[in-house]
């Protein structure tokens, strides 16, 4: 297994796409379809990485990210944000809140996986250090 990933995305079809793609790449995928459900997932064991949409109902992606960064178990989990194209302000806010990287929609699925792997390798090196 390549690792565990929490995917937070409110569009059911996109969530299904990401789940399918990441599973076929060997990831164990946990999903949440809105910000509130994502925060509930944070009560469980941390995943190896989080993919987080910025625009979410109930609790925004930025708020979920802030919650992740405030929890001791999840604090060091790499977070990759999904943003709309040309959403510069969202990107700046996400980095300010502690995001590790972002991918703008429309994205290349291969690039998404490559960025996830890079973040997870970086985390692995930090843990060893």
């Amino acid at each position, binding site marked *: 297994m390549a690792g565990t990933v929490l995917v937070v995305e409110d569009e059911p079809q996109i969530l299904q796409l990401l789940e399918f793609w990441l599973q076929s790449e060997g990831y164990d995928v946990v999903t949440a379809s809105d910000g509130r459900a994502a925060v509930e997932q944070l009560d469980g064991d941390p995943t190896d990485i989080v993919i987080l949409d910025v625009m979410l109902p109930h609790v925004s992606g930025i708020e979920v990210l802030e919650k992740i960064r405030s929890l001791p178990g999840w604090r060091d989990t790499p977070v990759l944000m999904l943003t709309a194209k040309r959403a510069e302000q969202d990107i700046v806010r996400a980095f300010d809140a502690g995001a590790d990287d972002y991918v703008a*929609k*429309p994205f*290349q699925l291969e690039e998404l996986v490559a960025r996830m792997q890079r973040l997870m390798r970086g985390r692995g090196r930090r843990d060893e250090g």
Partner: protein
Amino acid sequence: MTAGAETVVVELAIRTGVVALVLTGLLLVVAFLARYGLVRRRHRRSDVEAAWMPLLLNAMRGEVPDQVRTLRRPERGAVLALWNQLADTVQGAGYEHLVAFARRADFGQAARRLLRHRDAAARLAAAATLGRLQDVRSVRSLQDLLDHPNLALRAQAARALIRVDPDTGLRTAAPLVARWDDCHPAAAVAILTPAGPARAAAAVAVELRATDNPGRQVRLVKILDGLRQPSGVDAVRALLRSTENPEVISACLHVLAEYRDSADADLVRRFADHPAPFVRVQVVNALGRFRLEDLDFFVEKLGDRDWWVRYRAAHALVAMPLLEPGYLEDLAAHHPDRFARDALQQAMTEREAA
């Protein structure tokens, strides 16, 4: 009142009550049927999506079965909407595989038929599909949609035409989006961008040079602002040198502020004493963004008669990196104009709080 009259009143009341009861019953039946129809449509749609989603997901990985069945009539709208949603989300190989799958399953034919559907959502999905499939056979039908009262349909048809053939599509769409006052400039940018931002900017610049209508000029300048291409900025500079309309000047200055080329500073300064305060605001804003050490200019504008100009000038001063320590504090304490001191103190406080 006589007994006969009383009987008539009672009878009238009973009849009115019966009619009201019947109407209420009918209303309930209509509401139930509408709700039932909605739930049924939703179920049907989710059944269709459940059947097609695995096919589309596998197709994105390049795994297409030897036999792909064509779309049945009731499936068309839901499947094309789903396919477009996936196509909106991905690019690269996944997108190309999706398009290849749609060609193989003859989504083009389904979309051409759906383009005549009475439901606008179905027609939107159809137009988007035909654009993505670069379906030359549908050009005529898409062109017919360009004067539709529904903006979303018009916009989707224009975008589809650009996808089918960028050059011809742009020649058709650019003059139209210049005229569509109900279409926000950002939406116009989204319509034109499939042709490539540089090509789109060149087409919009042609429209800008061709019009002397100030309202249309402002609109086209805002579209060029969204496209952020050098050729577009050149057209904006040329317009700024020739126009006298304050709204047009303001829109042009906004573009130059966003473009942040300090070589434009002299052109921008020409409007520093313009009578319209919103023009002076744009001047200060632009020069502030150029990051020039234009200290005297901003100190002078700190005393402008308009609050927004003073406020922007104060922020430009606060953002200057190479000022002597204590300079701003001294200015905020001793500037002869009370309003200038207020503006500077406010900007300094906002900077500290940020």
